């Protein structure tokens, strides 16, 4: 019963978030100017502009357009692209798999490297290993992704010829974009894990566990890391959400046909309905991932389960 109430609360909160995101997407697009002039060019006559506006429904009052937009979104209709004439939802779904591959693999790599590095650094707080790990984390967060991507292409594609420089294909095409995209998640996850673990390892139950004869590995992973895991899981969720809604720079550098490069095209073409659709899609991705993270809290921390 408690769980059903919790799920219901999450669903309502998620729908409200989606409604707010759709509203923002609509009004911000309206504030950005009239797309019909952009589409027809400066030489278009007022009659031509008026005709296109009427055709696209832009001549109606803004509030009416807003109500229609929200109605369409709630029915799963994300509109039609001004540029290609295709259904936006179909266009986005056609790109989702490409971005999902990158996002999941990059964040998985980030967690696989970042968590052990963070745990290792925390277990050697203040020593050389900790300082080196902290320094590398700062470097990882500071390096511009587009620069790193280009350097990797230069070394591994152009000079060594080991890996393709871009486009989708087999697993070899994934290596460079995933490694490039993973640098920030690795650095962020390592830093947060280290900081959460440092706090966790100062708790008295850790000293008590040592006194009871538990091994260092068990203390670190079964107790320390478990207690430090909530912020790390939250960060992992946020990273997946961010990358799912488009890793714009990396997708552009590697000519990767994902959501990020679609967003770049939509903005360049001033394809307002597609931009709005992408914002709504990003919000949906975030809501779904946040809900999964919230459910995972209960698995990691029984106190959260009891509270629900």
């Amino acid at each position: 019963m408690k769980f059903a109430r919790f799920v219901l609360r999450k669903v309502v909160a998620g729908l409200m978030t989606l409604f707010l995101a759709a509203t923002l997407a609509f009004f911000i697009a309206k504030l950005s100017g009239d797309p019909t002039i952009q589409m027809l060019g400066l030489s278009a006559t007022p009659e031509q502009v008026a005709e296109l506006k009427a055709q696209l429904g832009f001549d109606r009052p803004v509030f009416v357009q807003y109500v229609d937009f929200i109605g369409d979104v709630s029915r799963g209709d994300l509109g039609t692209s001004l540029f290609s004439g295709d259904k936006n939802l179909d266009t986005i779904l056609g790109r989702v798999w490409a971005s999902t591959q990158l996002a999941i693999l990059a964040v998985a790599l980030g967690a696989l490297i970042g968590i052990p590095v963070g745990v290792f650094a925390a277990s050697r707080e203040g020593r050389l290993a900790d300082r080196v790990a902290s320094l590398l984390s700062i470097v990882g967060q500071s390096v511009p992704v587009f620069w790193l991507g280009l350097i990797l292409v230069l070394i591994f594609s152009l000079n060594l010829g080991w890996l393709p420089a871009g486009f989708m294909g087999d697993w070899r095409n994934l290596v460079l974009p995933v490694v490039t995209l993973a640098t920030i998640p690795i650095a962020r996850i390592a830093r947060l894990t280290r900081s959460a673990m440092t706090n966790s390892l100062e708790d008295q139950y850790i000293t008590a566990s040592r006194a009871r004869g538990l091994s260092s590995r068990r203390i670190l992973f079964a107790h320390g890391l478990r207690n430090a895991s909530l912020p790390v899981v939250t960060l992992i969720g946020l990273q997946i959400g961010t990358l799912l809604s488009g890793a714009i720079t990396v997708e552009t550098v590697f000519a990767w046909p994902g959501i990020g490069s679609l967003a770049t095209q939509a903005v360049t073409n001033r394809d307002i309905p597609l931009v709005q659709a992408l914002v709504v899609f990003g919000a949906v991705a975030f809501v779904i991932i946040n809900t999964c993270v919230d459910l995972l809290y209960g698995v990691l921390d029984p106190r959260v389960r009891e509270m629900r």
Partner: protein
Amino acid sequence: MTGVEHSTVLKVDHLTVTHMVRRNGGRRRPFNAVDDVSLDVSGGEIVGLVGESGSGKTTLSLAACGIGKMSGGAILAGGHDFSSIKGVTRRRAHCDVQMVFQDPMSSLDLRQRVGDGLDELRSIHPERTKRFTNEELMTRVGLTGDILGRLPSQISGGQAQRVSITRAMMLQPRLLVADEPTSGLDATVQAQILELFESFRRQENLAILFVSHNLAVVRRICDRAYVMKDGRIVESGGTKDLFERPQHDYTKRLIAAVPGKSANLAIIR
């Protein structure tokens, strides 16, 4: 003292624990938190260690349990010299020397149910933990079996301290170091916890190093006591003598500083 075996279970020999500390923003300098301390506790004996906050009691307790720093001297606890053993041998040796902490809540993993904590110790030390079932362990400390399914946040401070004592005692230690185990508990619960220590001392011939700044409690439960000041032992002796005929000025001041001293010293008797 009622024990059957009176052999020394804890022998601290000229222990020194030095920390590097920075004072007034200056350079880090060595500071002796424990300075050339020697003491001993025998089986079936409860020995008090009293002193103000910062006198080095907890540092000494942690070192006695093999989980604290040692800079000089030697400790033989439960038959083990923790400075010379490592790995599995060291982890097994911890069963002989257990500790009960001041704050029972923070000494338990708040995400671990009481029963899961006991099961974890069973999986690590199967030989030492097979004597009693979890339910029997709960009964021994005056708790009921339903506590096993609860999280630390769902039990009271007194219950948490009993759980903490259970976790220590289920490993059948020879020495128990109790660091301020009754502070923060109300008088009734304090008395119950003290009775628990006394019953374990009688039944298991347990040696207990009882660390406290509560002189009333020390007088009630301890056979002997050491008085610690600035990392050094300044006086020691039988509890009765120590409280009735203190020799050192610091001990006299400690006893004099107890508010409403006669009432307080009697409250837990």
